[in-house]
């Protein structure tokens, strides 16, 4: 898989994807974070330019500041470092549905050009070729968070003309489909892949490449995408990772690998062991 291969410029496609995503975040953001690239991006942002960013994981941990990336959305580290930890019903009612999330991160097994996402099944729902994990929090993150950022590695299998199942709603068939359904949040406003940065066209809502990562060509973007790619008139080049960004990300990953490969000791107890 290419994501792990360092290119000539000294960073991997996965690293530029993660760092580009981290740059899109501000200190005032309240992020609903998933595992994987979103978690890495949010924590790099927190450790570099956005120290005041609020990270929320759906396990109920609000305002976490983990030292290593969690393997699951309910790792103990998230609770240990959180401002507060609430129940799962409260998380989905007061914090997500309550409209308090500015940025929801979503990944996709299949994505279409309008930011609609499938993580449910490949094939027919009742007789699936591959049964995927399903939506989890995504169906409501997609409509309750003020904006959605999507991260994924590009592939023809993943970026498709037509998704097999609408796990979570992006811009539907484009245009004002969200408004027609009574959804008043912005939906997907940013797609960051291992090759490029995409934004929805203001009118059609089709994802359009606005920036190519260093060394990436238009052809390479098209080869790894299942639909005919639109490029912005003014196509930019994503700035290469700064030394601090790269060091922060790699240190985080190294700490994470060390913690998860061995049998890590539990973090300091903040519970009531001696109560």
């Amino acid at each position, binding site marked *: 898989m290419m994501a792990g291969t360092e290119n000539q410029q000294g960073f991997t496609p996965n690293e530029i994807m993660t760092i580009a995503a981290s740059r899109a975040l501000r200190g005032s953001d309240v992020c609903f974070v998933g595992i994987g690239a979103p978690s890495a991006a949010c924590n790099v942002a927190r450790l570099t330019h956005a120290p005041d960013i609020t990270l929320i994981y759906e396990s109920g941990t609000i305002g976490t500041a983990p030292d290593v990336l969690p*393997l699951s959305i309910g790792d103990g580290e998230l609770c240990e470092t959180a401002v507060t930890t609430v129940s799962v019903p409260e998380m*989905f*009612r007061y914090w997500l549905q309550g409209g308090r999330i500015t940025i929801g991160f979503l990944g996709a097994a299949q994505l279409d050009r309008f930011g609609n996402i499938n993580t449910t099944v490949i094939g027919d729902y009742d007789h699936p070729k591959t049964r995927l994990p399903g939506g989890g929090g995504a169906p409501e993150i997609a409509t309750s968070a003020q904006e959605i950022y999507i991260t994924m590695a590009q592939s023809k299998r993943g970026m498709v003309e037509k998704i097999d199942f609408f796990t979570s709603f992006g811009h539907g068939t484009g245009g004002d489909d*969200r408004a027609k359904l009574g959804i008043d949040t912005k939906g997907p406003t940013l797609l960051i892949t291992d090759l490029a940065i995409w934004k929805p066209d203001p009118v059609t809502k089709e994802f359009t490449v606005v920036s190519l990562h260093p060394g990436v060509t238009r052809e390479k973007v098209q080869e790894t995408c299942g639909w005919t790619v639109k490029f912005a008139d003014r196509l930019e080049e994503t700035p290469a990772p700064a030394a601090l960004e790269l060091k922060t990300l790699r240190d985080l990953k190294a700490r994470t690998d060390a913690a998860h490969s061995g049998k890590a000791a539990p973090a300091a107890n903040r519970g*009531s062991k001696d109560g």
Partner: protein
Amino acid sequence: MAQFMPLSQAVAENLRNGDVAAFEGFTHLIPTAAAHEAIRQGFRDLTLVRMTPDVVYDQMIGMGMAKKVIFSYAGNPGVGLLRRMRDAIENGWPNRIEVEEHSHAAMANAYEAGAAGLPCAIFRGYRGAGLAEVNPNIRSIVCPFTGEKLAAVPSVRPDVSFVHAQKADRKGNVLVEGIIGIQKEAVLAARRAVVTVEEVVDDFKGLHPNLTILPSWTITAISVVPGGAHPSYTHGYYARDNASYIEWDEIAADRDRFRAWMQANVLDASPEDFAARVASLRAA
């Protein structure tokens, strides 16, 4: 009033073939020991409810105990897919299972409504989502004040819920802390509730007044099973065994290897084995 008893007795007295059963725990505090005891006792035709049917439901489904699964995210957290559950859904091995699939928001609201004694939950959800088209238990109501259409799902009211918690006091009150997930709602929504705990303490004197404590009279049975959440973790007692979750991906990939693993680690094991499994994961 909660009765203290061995786990084998607690499971035998409170789980029945055909039950709607929830073994809950949101990554943290997963009642693995209780699930393994249910596997040993060989229950059948269960409707298994859980937001995140991870490794333990993969095991129960793979052992042919499930008739139906009600869930919202069927993954091995941070690792990948649930291969035994996939095998059942995709290939009908060892038996076909019925699937009722929801989103997390729907399941969380459904448990909450169950604990609150309501027949259904309403929330702003499933807008534009495909699940609303394939799950007949996703319906709607119209707000009588604004006219807004809101999603409605039936409440979850298990025949029995199993949860794991940090500790009980001698009266049978139970403390849950850390990532509390849906534990309280799972207990209060159920007809019967079985709780495994790490330890029993004399009393809860000195505990902060706003902690999540389940009063003794909301619980049917309590069993002391140190390490009973492994490979999940118990905040304040031992860490998550991430390596086991990663290892599970290989074990579950093959039917024979799965069966052999279950024989050695579940069918031929007992609740007492859990303590040793977490020994190296405890704080120094």
